[in-house]
């Protein structure tokens, strides 16, 4: 398989990248890790006229932990998984990231790329929702920050404007009484999520004082589960509470069906995996 021909640019700064985006408009696609874009191009599913390769922009790479956790959009899964500091303050990231693709995909694939691509079965969107991450983007008018919950708008669609570049993802480190987990039902061939659920729990003593859930793989886009979250609040996070609350998962969502999992089955699995993610998050929050 061979991609169609394209014009290639490799900017070395964010400003240069944004200028190129402005110049080429819809014709252009950003190339980061390339593990979604290049296969799509080889299969003829995408044929951008211009590729803007941002991998030479050093400032987009790396993890900074000072109060918040700031992860450059070009930071690879492998770099996230191996980052000592992240293992301490946000262990769920490593847990989730190590389930992505394979060793080679993790060496190339980037957090920012996955979020900007917004594949409905990608793992990272669920994490950003559950962890209430902020997504920093730069455009011709400067920079702005988008809450994860507002970022994913539809299948393969985000709140990014065509002339904007996703530059960083900001997480809040977890402290005592907080726990998060990611569990997924992997696609047997790609290990994308057929259903993936990220859960965050904060305990106030023995009671749940905050809960966020991000579900991926099930619908056109990753989504929070407000009903489940509400049901968890004030409860003790025990098995019965989890079982009851997770029954609300996926309700009201447009669930997808395909050859790997029908709509009915996915709907049921959203509940099961929500329960399992919550159970793990609660256990971690209890310490």
């Amino acid at each position, binding site marked *: *398989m*061979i991609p*169609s021909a394209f014009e290639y640019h490799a900017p070395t700064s964010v400003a240069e990248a944004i200028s190129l985006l402005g110049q080429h408009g819809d014709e252009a696609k950003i190339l980061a890790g390339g593990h979604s874009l290049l296969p799509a191009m080889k299969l003829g599913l995408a044929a951008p006229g211009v590729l803007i390769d941002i991998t030479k922009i050093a400032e987009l790479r790396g993890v900074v932990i000072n109060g918040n956790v700031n992860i450059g959009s070009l930071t690879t899964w492998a770099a996230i998984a191996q980052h000592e500091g992240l293992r301490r303050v946000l262990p769920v990231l490593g847990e989730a990231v190590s389930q992505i693709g394979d060793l080679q995909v993790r060496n190339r694939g980037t957090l920012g790329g996955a979020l900007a691509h917004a594949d409905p079965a990608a793992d990272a969107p669920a994490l950003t929702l559950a962890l209430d991450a902020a997504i920093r983007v730069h455009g011709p008018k400067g920079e702005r920050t988008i809450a994860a919950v507002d970022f994913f708008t539809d299948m393969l669609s985000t709140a990014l404007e065509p002339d904007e570049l996703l530059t960083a993802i900001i997480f809040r480190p977890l402290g005592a009484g907080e726990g998060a987990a990611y569990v997924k*039902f992997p696609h*047997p*061939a790609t290990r994308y999520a057929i259903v993936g659920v990220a859960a965050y729990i904060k305990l106030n003593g023995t009671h749940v004082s905050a809960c966020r859930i991000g579900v991926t793989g099930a619908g056109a886009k990753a989504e929070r589960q407000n009903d489940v979250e509400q049901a968890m609040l004030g409860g003790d996070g025990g098995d019965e509470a989890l079982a009851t609350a997770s029954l609300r998962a996926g309700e009201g969502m447009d669930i997808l069906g395909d050859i790997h*999992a029908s709509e009915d*089955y996915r709907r*049921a*699995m959203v509940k099961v995996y929500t329960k399992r993610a919550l159970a793990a998050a609660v256990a971690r929050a209890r310490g």
Partner: protein
Amino acid sequence: MTATEVKERIVGRALKRREDPKLIQGQGQYLDDIKLQGMLHIALVRSPHAHANIKQIDISRALAHPGVVAVFTGAEMLDINPLPAAWQAGGVKNNAVTPRALAVGKVTMVGDPVALVVAEDRYIARDAALLVEVDWEPLPAVVDAKQAAQPGAPQLHEAAPNNIVFEWEAGSQTDADAAFASAEVQVSEPIINQRLIPTPLETRGAIARYDNATSEFTVWMTSQAPHVMRLLLTAFVFGIPETKLRCISPNVGGGFGQKIFCYNDMAFTMWVARKLGRPVKFVEDRAENYQYSTHGRDHITDAAICGTKDGKITGLRVKTYANIGGYFSTIAGGIPTTLYGRILNGVYKIPGVYVHVTGTYTNTAMVDAYRGAGRPEASYLIERMVDRFAAELGLDPVEVRRKNFIQPTDFPYQNGLGLLPYDSGNYEPALDKALAMAGYTEFRKAQAEARTQGRYLGIGVSSYVEICGVAPSAWVGLNGQGWGAGLWESANVRVHLTGKIVVTTGSLPHGQGIETTFAQLVADELGVAYEDVEVQWGDTQGTPFGYGTYGSRSLSVGGVAVKKSLDKLKAKVKKLAAHMLEANEVDIVFDDGKAFVQGSADKAKTFAEIAAQAALAYSLPEGMEPGLDETSYYDPPNCTFPFGTHIAIVEVDTETGHVALKRYIAVDDCGNRINPLIIEGQIHGGIVQGVAQALYEGAVYNEDGQLLTGTLMDYAVPTAAMVPHFELDHTVTPSPVNALGVKGAGEAGTIGSAQAVINAVVDALTPFGVKHIQMPVTPERVWKAIQQK
């Protein structure tokens, strides 16, 4: 005294493979690694429709594209014939419609090629192929083998009314009816053996070169059977002398059956090379391989089994629709008939068996042999039905197996399905060994205990027998099973002046380690150093004719041909040694690489000395020709029948339906064992393909004939993390059929495994009343089966 007592025998030793040094250093030469001076590249224009008429093809834009040398359509290639149908279902009418080099007039599957672009490089060829404009008239499609035969189904080929390729039967309907009429218990079940995509890691392709001065073609091909391709392409497709084509298989990156067949790319690369006078290369990408190269299995079956209340099986009735795909592939007729229907009784004595098979065309990729080829389908069916039967009676499936086994004293065993007699077998020791390894009795206790805790464990047993070492030519050939030629093998053993030995074979190893295994045989037989033996294969120029490597036949047929050549060679060695030692030939012993007069081993002539004398020919016995060079043809008197028992242990997550394969035990009997390392490797790989069918793989077409599992992003070939460690052991029941006592091991793993896994899953789900789940048992299917309780 035999040679074995002097020189350490290497037959039976787990030698590491001589094939490997180049392959582990990236120095193998696979098809796409070959570059010829001036070589052009071909890209195909393929149908996006499963069924359509071709109204018009406009090549003008493609032709104008810079770097394009030529664009051709099928209409221009009508001077060559369609590909041959080399194995049609035996004894019945076959409506065989085979593909042409490029489709003409209509297409019958997605990916059916209608035009080709020849360009200076593959990037240009690919770009230009997108510029060919085809005016399609889409037609309704049918993808299901059973629906295809129903009235009103879309019709693929005029020559095949109701899409029927053949109607074939085996066994006795009368006996089966009688068995069912008097049975105390009977069970029926629809059994689907889903379509699989063989997926050798290397896709297929061909490179053709034509020498205008001599009118000779050379074709490099990803083929398991280059000699057969040479025959088919010259005698049937091009109508040229067989001597005008040289076929070469370089290193072949896995075959699993898909690379046995004659494909359109062999024909169109030859045609284009001749037309343009330049060498051309075509290599499929993976999506093309999935759309157009052959698939396997795809049976829709209604099966019924009957017997007595105490577990004696008396009857088996099977009606199968076998999907043939959009055209008839090279040996598609023999797979769901001879290699399936004739061994449906498996390892059991069943008095009344009857099978009827309807082969049908559908708007899907052609279906032909895939690892096991018919025997996995048969083995799956009987082993599932035996479990169903046992469950219906509330009996232990192991005991039902034991009760119905063909006994050691029954061999040679005629199964009543028109098969040659099973050569040898001893099924119970293999079963017992596997049960012991699995800890069957303890497992049953643990299983009961686990169920009380809400954990669902299952154990599945599969006792299989299969057909290898195919096949006696007179039986398998045109007057018997419908195979369009013979099925013998030949081998040449040539000794050079320096005593170095070259074996040439028509077998075509592509992972089976034949170079190593054959060299082990030769070294022991001649008492020479293993390193002094070279095994050559793959090029029709320089190797004797062979039907190729498939059907687990390369040792049990090709290896026996080597053995026969060695026997001839040794006779000549003795004769020459007698002359050199001035003794009588009858007194000469040839052993451990030396020839001597019986009782005086100290006055011996070494093999090297004899070889030198034979080559120099300074002093030969009266009338003896120089040289030690012998060729043999071996036509086996029977097939061989390897067997064994596989056991799978699973745990089912009843909330999600996920099946965890916890343990896998395999006890196989492939007769005598030349290289255990290689045999075990074959078993391992075979098991994964069966396990994959049980748990993961399945080609899916939608109703319009679009292949939904069109790449490895959707077709789930298992990774290392998806399969367990395998626990292997074996029994040895030599085959009486051949001088080596070998049976074959290439497909046993696949033939024995899928049903072990499914039996285990169903066993785990017994508390939920689950009786059968169709493969692959995806989490969703398991979950649904549980929900339906």
